């Protein structure tokens, strides 16, 4: 079963860690070398399976952090009471092996042909699939205009900050820091709600395509507000993660 992947079949295979990047004190990006990777689309997931010596195994699904055609990478946030994330964010090193399968999922996916204008709204590590979408747009030479609204508790918790700040043409990024702001912070310091979205998001008349990813409450609030602002529900794609189980 763990052998060569059969095309079209989803099988577990052994990936090798090729790079580890510390994004924030509790978040790491893990680059993976996967022998039989069929290619993925921005926003898809992969499953990771860890097996203990006694045979107990735990599986988790992670958003792929890279664009189509780029090497596979996941970005993982350490959860204090997690079964999998502490290992991935603290112990795993370059050269180590991991059991994975994927890519999976097709709902929270953006392809260049899907167009825009794009509204990306991320809370905490919900930025991960949105980053894949941004890279996808960049790599494919798309000129679809993008607005990204990224909410985090503090400046030190913003993931991919340098990379995000490097975007210019057609990408407008707004940060909001909800708990702690550095001295002289001129960005937003409030939770994302309807009023903030009304100020920042594309008007519904532009027929925008929205991707919202973050903690469950965050996603419910944002998706509900966008629909209230006139966004077509079918063009508001959502992905939530729970308190402790998923990541």
């Amino acid at each position, binding site marked *: 079963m763990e052998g060569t992947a059969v*095309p*079209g*079949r*989803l099988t577990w295979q052994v990936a090798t860690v090729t790079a580890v990047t510390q994004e924030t004190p509790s978040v790491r990006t893990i680059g993976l070398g996967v022998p039989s990777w*069929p*290619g*993925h*689309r921005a926003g*898809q*997931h*992969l*499953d990771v399976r860890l097996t203990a010596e006694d045979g107990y195994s735990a*599986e*988790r*699904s992670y958003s792929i952090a890279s664009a189509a055609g780029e090497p596979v990478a996941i970005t993982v946030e350490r959860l204090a009471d997690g079964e999998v994330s502490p290992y991935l964010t603290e112990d795993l090193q370059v050269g180590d092996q991991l059991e994975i*399968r*994927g*890519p*999976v*999922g*097709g*709902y*929270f*996916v953006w392809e260049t042909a899907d167009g825009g204008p794009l509204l990306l709204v991320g809370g905490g590590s919900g930025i991960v699939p949105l980053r894949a979408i941004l890279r996808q747009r960049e790599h494919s030479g798309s000129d679809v205009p993008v607005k990204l609204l990224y909410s985090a508790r503090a400046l030190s918790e913003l993931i991919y900050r340098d990379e995000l700040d490097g975007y210019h043409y057609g990408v407008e990024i707004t940060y909001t820091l909800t708990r702690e702001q550095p001295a002289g912070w001129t960005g937003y310091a409030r939770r994302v709600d309807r009023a903030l979205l009304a100020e920042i998001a594309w008007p519904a008349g532009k027929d925008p395509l929205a991707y919202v990813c973050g903690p*469950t409450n965050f996603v419910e609030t944002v998706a509900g507000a966008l629909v209230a602002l006139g966004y077509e529900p079918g063009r508001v794609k*959502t*992905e*939530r*993660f*729970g*308190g*402790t*189980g*998923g990541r």
Partner: protein
Amino acid sequence: MDELDGNEAAGLLQEVFGREMTVAAATCASCGTVAPIGEGRLYTGGPGTVIRCRTCVAVLVVITQVRGRYCVDLMGIRALDMPPGNMAPGGA
């Protein structure tokens, strides 16, 4: 029990159904809401995997595994509308 996102069951669903299922639109047998499976509420903490309707919280899908065999209960889904194609893991 922690509530997760239906998208996180994509791997399991693909293993069971042999194709990408999170984009399939399920009609909830309880409230009639039509939504992609990926929009559902996922629970993995109990025995088996449960996906519930995001609107009314009724159970849509239960998948259990007993001695390597999958048992799939879809009683909570009145209709399932699957987009064509998309058989390969990478999608098409």
